């Protein structure tokens, strides 16, 4: 990011390639509608580009990036309802040729998705930041402007609920 701030456009290309998919999924699973997720995703990157001049390497770029993403998602939640992306349109990879097993896997995944969707927004965000963005508890706390205890608690509750959903399989 410092290189990009100095005018190296190629540095941004590398940053973007590294974070694009994970950031997109974080946004997509925080927001139900793909079009809205794309719009929000674009806004996040535009904000990164705009703020390049004020960027200070006090933390990892990833934490800074997801702080921006968190703020944008919160803004979106405030503007309207919140939900995770529906899995109805997602096809489970056909790893097993057995149709019965395939259907069972699809149901298990649907239960997991439903459990993820039922999580309180703060817990779901903590889990997504941890699982998708790879942030530690302290980084989650920094990105969500909360303290470590709160972030740790949210993440623990989220994981416990999701594990319970898995145990039902």
């Amino acid at each position, binding site marked *: 990011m410092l290189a990009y701030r100095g005018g190296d456009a190629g540095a941004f290309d590398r940053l973007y390639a590294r974070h694009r*998919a994970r950031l*997109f999924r974080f946004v997509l*699973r925080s927001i139900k509608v793909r079009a809205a997720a794309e719009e929000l995703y674009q806004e996040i990157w*535009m904000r990164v580009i705009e703020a390049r001049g004020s960027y200070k390497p006090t933390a990892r770029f990833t934490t800074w990036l997801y702080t921006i993403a968190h703020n944008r998602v919160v803004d979106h939640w405030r503007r309207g309802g919140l939900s995770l992306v529906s899995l109805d349109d997602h096809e489970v990879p056909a790893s097993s040729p057995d149709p019965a097993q395939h259907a069972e896997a699809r149901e298990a995944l649907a239960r997991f998705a439903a459990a993820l969707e039922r999580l309180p927004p703060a817990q779901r965000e903590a889990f997504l930041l941890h699982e998708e963005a790879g942030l530690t508890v302290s980084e989650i706390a920094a990105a969500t402007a909360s303290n470590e205890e709160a972030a*740790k608690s949210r993440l623990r509750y989220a*994981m416990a609920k999701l594990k319970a959903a898995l145990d039902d399989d």
Partner: protein
Amino acid sequence: MTDERDPKLSRRYRELGAEEPSRELDQGILAAAHRAADKAHAPLVTPAGRHRWYFAFGAAAILVLAVAVTVQVERQQPDPEAIPASPAPVRSDREEGFSYQQEQQEDRKRAEVRKQLERPKALSEVAPTPAQEAPRAPSRDAANRVEVEPKPAPAPEKREQSAAAPAPQAAPSPEVMASAARLSPERLLERIAELRKEGRHDEADKALAEFRQRYPDYRISDEMLQKVERRK
């Protein structure tokens, strides 16, 4: 503890899908980033753009308001040249303690007297012309005048009716009587002298009598007295 991932949970989460942004989205963002890099530190999206619109609109609104207020103030200010023009004669009457209502009453009385005295005269002689009416323009007579002026030769009956109206249209010497109420004593005496000079002695006598009635304390100089009094 929580910093460590649960492999089973992570695997299940990965099964939800590996969605990625569209290629168009990628290209748009990268193009924007490159444009921004080319412009050095200039902001990609001017943050003040929206505010700039507000400033322009606000400035225009203030300008329009200022012009409107200025025009309004100019309209409401009285024309300094118009102030002394029309009310001057009225003011002089008031200084003499002669109100408009009194003037009207006296005009009516005079009109009655003159009507009786001047009835034998030809109508054409007593008919006031618009030019004669012009200097006397009390606004309260406007309606009556408008009805009379356009008729060059009214019937005798109508003439009598109009003579009884507040305005002394049928007075024998309307120019004298009309202006009498507004003229200063000196000017009034000069008018009487003019009448006398023209041989209109009856009118001059009446005007002089009215003058003395109106200004009982006014001392007429000997020179003027010779001009205004009928010589025997």
